């Protein structure tokens, strides 16, 4: 007696293969769905926004008149924000990573800090906004200025820099550290002269990704209290400011009132995406250039 009836198997095989092929097509289409959305999104934004982009749009101050409105204030605001975010998040992020990877003994304190950082990465950005509003803007009485926004953003993107720097430091081969210690170098000399230079590309990639995250974040700064209409151009870290995503936000919600605001929002999105594209390309270039050196 045969347990496997081969004719039966043959008969079923056809439908089984068909199911497999159907599923494969479905899975492929799912994957393409993302591409489709991306294409539609970029097409819409370009179609609505591109005709509005010219030198005046980039260089003009904000205005209620769509024809005269420009994003110079948002551009300088974004730059000033980066002036605060970049050094603060680098100092905190790289310092934390060095401590965790090189100094902390693998004990309770370091695993507590690690858990804390991964939990911090999951805290909604709007909650960081509340922290910034309460601590920096009100308790320290900075108001909704660049410094308050920058510190908030720096804390928000901190986990990105910490995790990327940790990975980069961990990837530095042990034999390089041994070579340095073997010369009588102290721990800090070894870190400063050998580990950090070797980990730099990975760290830089993480920093750029963190900054591009900060450039695109909206909620925390809206919560801190960036005004909807700010005419003066910020001139330092103690000035009130606005940034590209917040400008997009106000123009989008007001587009129900003035239809052209939607075009202004789209034009600003084009600029924002362009900036992010350039930053990410730089990050990818760094990553590819310095991969596998040993």
């Amino acid at each position: 007696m045969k347990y496997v009836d081969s004719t039966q198997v043959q008969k079923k095989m056809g439908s089984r293969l068909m199911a497999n092929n159907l599923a494969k097509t479905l899975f492929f289409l799912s994957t393409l769905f993302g591409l489709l959305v991306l294409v539609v999104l970029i097409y819409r934004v370009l179609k609505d926004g591109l005709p509005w982009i010219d030198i005046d749009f980039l260089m003009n101050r904000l205005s209620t008149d769509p024809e005269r409105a420009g994003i110079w204030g948002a551009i300088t605001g974004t730059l000033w924000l980066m002036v605060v975010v970049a050094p603060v998040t680098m100092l905190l992020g790289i310092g934390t990573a060095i401590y965790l990877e090189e100094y902390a003994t693998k004990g309770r304190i370091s695993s507590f800090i690690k858990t804390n950082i991964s939990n911090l990465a999951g805290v909604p950005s709007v909650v960081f906004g509340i922290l910034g509003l309460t601590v920096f803007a009100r308790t320290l009485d900075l108001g909704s200025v660049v410094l308050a926004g920058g510190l908030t953003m720096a804390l928000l993107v901190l986990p990105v820099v910490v995790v990327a720097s940790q990975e980069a430091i961990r990837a530095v081969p042990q034999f390089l550290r041994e070579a340095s210690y073997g010369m009588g170098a102290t721990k800090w000399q070894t870190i400063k002269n050998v580990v950090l230079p070797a980990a730099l590309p990975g760290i830089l990639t993480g920093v750029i990704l963190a900054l591009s995250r900060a450039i695109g974040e909206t909620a925390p700064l809206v919560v801190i209290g960036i005004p909807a209409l700010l005419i003066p151009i910020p001139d330092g870290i103690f000035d009130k400011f606005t940034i590209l995503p917040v400008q997009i936000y106000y123009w989008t919600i007001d587009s129900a009132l003035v239809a052209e605001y939607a075009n202004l929002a789209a034009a600003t999105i084009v600029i924002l995406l362009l900036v992010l594209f350039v930053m990410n390309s730089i990050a990818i270039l760094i990553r590819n250039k310095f991969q596998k050196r040993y």
Partner: protein
Amino acid sequence: MKGVFFVAKGVVHEHDQNLNVREIIQEKKKTKSFNNYTEKFIPKILFGIAAISVFTTIGIVLTLLTETIAFFKDVPFIDFFTGTKLKPLGENAVFGVLPLLTGTLISTAIAMLVAIPVGLMTAVFLSEYASEKTRRLLKPILEILAGIPTIVYGFFAFTFVTPLLRSFIPGLEPTNILSPGIVMGIMIIPMVASLSEDAMSSVPNSMREGALALGATKLEVTWKVVIPAAISGIIASFVLGISRAIGETMIVTIASGSSKNFTFDVTQSMQTMTAYIVEVTGGEAAAGTTLYYSLYAVAMTLFVFTLIMNMVAQYISRKFREEY
């Protein structure tokens, strides 16, 4: 003997001609107390820096907690969590969080209805079906999608998806929870896809080969071998996606409006917890008012929700890592 003498002389001669590095170093060592200070203080400074992330968490919790306690002095705990009516402004302000909770949960549910199937199927395609070349072509697209700022998705939901949906669904309001829910789902697809793909890729090939050798099709292998083996990683990706959806702010703020209806009708405008926070802070609520405190009570609720989700995800994926 003469020869030996000559060699010895030669050695001496060589030393004279060249500088004595050993001596210079010994000399420098004496003046290096500064270095000892650095060695001692650097770890302490770095520990201080690392502690800032902990202080941030403490700062968040303390800020939320103190003001939330103040809020519950004005509004009874029970009333807040069972109240179906939220009317923060005006004479007879009422603070029930349920409208915000339903808004949050419904938008999250819609998002996950999009993100889970599409994300999982994408992950299966990339991990099980795609050739190396296709994968290298498609993965960057997911990365780009993941890198698009949420404000751009918000604009997309408001100016494109909502009008599009309104041409199918006549009763759909200009601001509604459906459109931002779907767009949030699209935003979360890359996250679910890449985390699930990681989980599936780490299933050992020997398990697949065992089933393939028995004549199973790829679909059967995926469904009966790979997904069960990677299930905890996959579920962790879902949980993280949910947490992300709960915390997402700009898409719902823009596209779902600020109506505080307690409803389950997805064609209507609803407010999520995050959108409420944006609305109240945007209105510059005066410190000390119940409205101001309500901000913190809602933020605390939001914080606790996402924290639990993240911890669940961490727990699941930790268990998963121990499996192989």
